């Protein structure tokens, strides 16, 4: 196959700091090359320099990038605008932030056609509509008329892909196209890109930090670390015997599944009875929590699984008394949590985004010690002693206590978050998606830390996430939530290996068995109708019955620990 892109000892540095260090790489026609590396390894910068977006007067660039045997770095801006969009297309990570918020999708998506193919706006719009129908977006006319903020991540990314492929470019660069999209929709995007390469013969550079994802899509893979390519070769061959330790590290971060045996003590610690939380937005009521009942036992790790918008964050805010529920009770050892004094000694919370969960103006010592400062003023030395002890417990050096949050790395900040929660040595620790912002390697370290802490100080965890693989690893029991209700609770093995509720089945299949289970049914829109009564999943459920629509199913026990809320049982 003839190579369409050849990068010859290309290096790029910014204010003296080397970002890319003499990269040699080539992509041949119709081939999908995956570039895999940790965050901060320079993979995005590589993608942008192929398009010549890094302007020479900001970065100093050495080496050549040959495309159709013309060197991108030396081409004038006028020539580059002819290549970009026409010959090389680009898909970015956050679809919604890369689309102009104040312009209709129609005018944004048809711009490349209009500019490069000189097609007038109306005709380009029709062309784009057929494209979108091919990418199974069932109402392209409405789609074209809407604005970016009206679309979900998955829908927007499909539009961008359609735009790029509409000019039949020779190369498409996809920079982590799926990492910020819901796990369910991720698979359909990957399938889209794969078809693009096979049918149209466009070669693709697929950039990701998830080696397993790369294995699913790419022919060849190149592993990049700290700006240098450490390994390159056929996908299966690299997977089987990784030559460098960076690749090894990437590999074991996501495949290993460790079964964990933990004795489950039966003492009920936290009881949640028929919790409801309704927000009035405009003239309709948003039922974030619609009757949730749950019991948390001492020493266990309860996983709460659900898509975004299913009410799991609202649940965590009520349990930590940040918000009052509209109705329903939360009892801790029998007493209502809102009447307990010094509640922070019982329940603590760890947040998702480590940057916003810490006051940037405060030093680490004050952040960690905030818990005890509010409860009872301790003397200066005692307070620092406690802080150092907590920091050590989460594996951080005590010298860190005088630094500011923005001087730490993502992983370190998350550990400080944990230290802050442990300072009042609580009994229950609620973790709201603590690892979703970390890349796979630091995710693994974090999970190990949680396990270490659980054994040391007998903590009870409530672990909230949309990522089934993590819950598979660490949780004893898993509760599946959908639209403010618990549809299924059971031990980890029952939920992962024989899910009963149709919605749980779909979740598990989508992320573990990676089948394209529901591609066509995904986009039925009218789920708001059943907001008030009946099972909320009836619209999407394979075997909906009339009963499902009227009356909402209660949680019934199938066997042992396993409950499900569905009329089929």
């Amino acid at each position: 196959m003839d190579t369409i892109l050849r990068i010859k000892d290309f290096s790029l540095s910014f204010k003296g700091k080397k970002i890319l260090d003499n990269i040699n790489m080539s992509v041949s026609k119709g081939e999908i090359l995956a570039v895999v590396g940790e965050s901060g390894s320079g993979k995005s910068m590589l993608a942008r320099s192929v398009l010549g977006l890094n302007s020479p007067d900001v970065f100093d660039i050495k080496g050549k990038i040959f495309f159709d045997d013309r060197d991108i770095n030396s081409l004038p801006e006028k020539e580059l605008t002819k290549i970009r969009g026409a010959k090389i297309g680009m898909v970015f990570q956050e679809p919604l932030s890369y689309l102009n918020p104040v312009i209709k999708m129609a005018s944004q998506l048809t711009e490349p056609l209009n500019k490069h193919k000189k097609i007038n706006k109306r005709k380009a719009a029709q062309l784009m509509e057929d494209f979108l129908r091919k990418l199974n977006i069932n109402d392209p006319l409405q789609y074209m008329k809407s604005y970016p903020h009206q679309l979900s991540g998955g829908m927007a990314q499909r539009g961008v892909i359609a735009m790029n492929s509409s000019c039949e470019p020779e190369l498409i660069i996809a920079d982590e196209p799926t990492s910020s999209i819901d796990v369910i929709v991720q698979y359909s995007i990957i399938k889209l890109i794969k078809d693009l390469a096979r049918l149209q013969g466009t070669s693709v550079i697929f950039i990701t930090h998830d080696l397993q994802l790369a294995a699913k899509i790419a022919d060849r893979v190149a592993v990049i670390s700290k700006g240098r390519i450490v390994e390159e070769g056929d996908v299966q061959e690299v997977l089987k015997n990784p030559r460098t330790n960076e690749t090894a590290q990437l590999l074991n971060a996501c495949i290993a599944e460790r079964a964990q045996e933990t004795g489950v003590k039966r003492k009920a610690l936290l009881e949640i009875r028929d919790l409801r939380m309704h927000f009035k937005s405009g003239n309709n009521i948003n039922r974030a929590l619609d009757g949730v009942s749950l019991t948390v036992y001492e020493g266990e790790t309860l996983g709460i699984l659900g898509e975004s918008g299913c009410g799991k964050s609202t649940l965590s805010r009520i349990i930590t008394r940040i918000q009052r529920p509209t109705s329903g009770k939360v009892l801790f050892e029998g007493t209502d949590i809102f009447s307990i004094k010094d509640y922070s000694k019982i329940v603590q919370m760890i947040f998702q985004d480590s940057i916003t969960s810490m006051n940037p103006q405060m030093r680490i010592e004050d952040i960690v010690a905030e818990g005890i400062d509010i409860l009872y003023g301790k003397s200066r030395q005692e307070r620092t002693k406690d802080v150092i002890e907590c920091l050590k417990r989460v594996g951080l050096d005590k010298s860190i206590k005088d630094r500011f949050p923005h001087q730490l790395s993502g992983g370190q900040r998350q550990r400080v978050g944990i230290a802050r929660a442990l300072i009042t040595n609580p009994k229950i620790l609620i973790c709201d998606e603590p690892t979703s912002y970390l890349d796979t390697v630091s995710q693994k370290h974090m999970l190990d830390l949680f396990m270490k802490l659980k054994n040391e100080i007998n903590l009870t965890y409530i672990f909230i996430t949309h990522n089934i693989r993590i819950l598979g690893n660490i949780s004893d029991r898993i509760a599946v939530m959908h639209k403010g209700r618990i549809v299924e609770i059971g031990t980890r093995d029952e939920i992962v290996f024989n899910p009963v509720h149709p919605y749980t089945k779909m979740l598990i299949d989508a992320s573990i068995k990676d089948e394209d289970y529901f591609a066509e049914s995904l986009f039925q829109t009218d789920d708001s109708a059943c907001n008030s009564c009946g099972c909320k999943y009836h619209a999407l459920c394979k075997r909906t019955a009339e009963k499902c629509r009227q009356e909402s199913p209660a949680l019934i026990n199938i066997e042992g620990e396993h409950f499900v809320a569905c009329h089929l049982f």
Partner: protein
Amino acid sequence: MLKRLASFLITMWLVVTLTFIFIRCLPGSPFNSDKMVHPQILSNLNTKYGLDKPFHEQYLRYMQNLVKGDLGISMIYKNRSVSSIIKRAFPVSLDLGIRAVLLAAFVGLLLGLISALFTNKAQDHIISAITMISVSLPGFVVGTLLQYLLCYRLSVLIYNITKVRFNIFPNTGWEGFRSTVVPTIALAAGVMGIVAKMLRSSLKDVMNQDYIVMSRAKGLNKREVVFRHALKNALLPLLSISGPLVSSIIMGSFVIENIFSIPGLGRYFVSSVQDKDYTMVLGLSVFSVFIVVLINTLTDILYAIVDPRVRIEPKDRLGA
């Protein structure tokens, strides 16, 4: 919509009450402004205007009239109703204000655009110097200098050359296009700086947003990127500050109207308080609340038109 009306009424009531109390605690009376009036005649005047009645009674009577829409008659301009004065004077201030806003917006946008397009080049520095100076010079200085140079000096120049007494721009007055040119430039000078500075900084912010990188990746050249994508977003912050800015200009600037003797509403804001013309001050406050709220509503509507995120709730989203 109802909520906005309710808040308007509350604001109006607060303004009238506060002003009513403020103006009453000023020493002196509206009738002694130049000469001391004979005490007997003074007491006759007070009874005529009801100033001798107890405070709350006057307040209630004024509120009843206000609800009926009658702002009362001015105490200084004999037998002229406050609303007739406002009806006659406001259109002139509005006319001057609109011309100034248009000129300022046009030139401000132009300067802001050019300095954003040619960042850190010669044009950028010159323009930022001009805007800095235009923001820093007080209005009355700009007005007086412009009048001196453009109106007077120009007429003397022409007179010396052509020996014909002929003024391109008359010093004062407000009839015919020529007499509006210099006051409009003077009023627009300050605002121009603000608009240009604001646009320049917001354009710079927008230029390093993600969707601009995408538009460049689509192959659009610099001009297309700015005009099709950047400009519309850069105008949003400008819109949000334009409400208060426009309303303050529309209601007439005392300084410019005083220098160019323009029969606008601006001068009444100061003279009515100095002459302690109680009914006029209250009438002006009521009127200005009405204008400020009206213009704020207009800017909100304009903002919703330009920015769909405000207009269309995300809740009716498409698909999962």
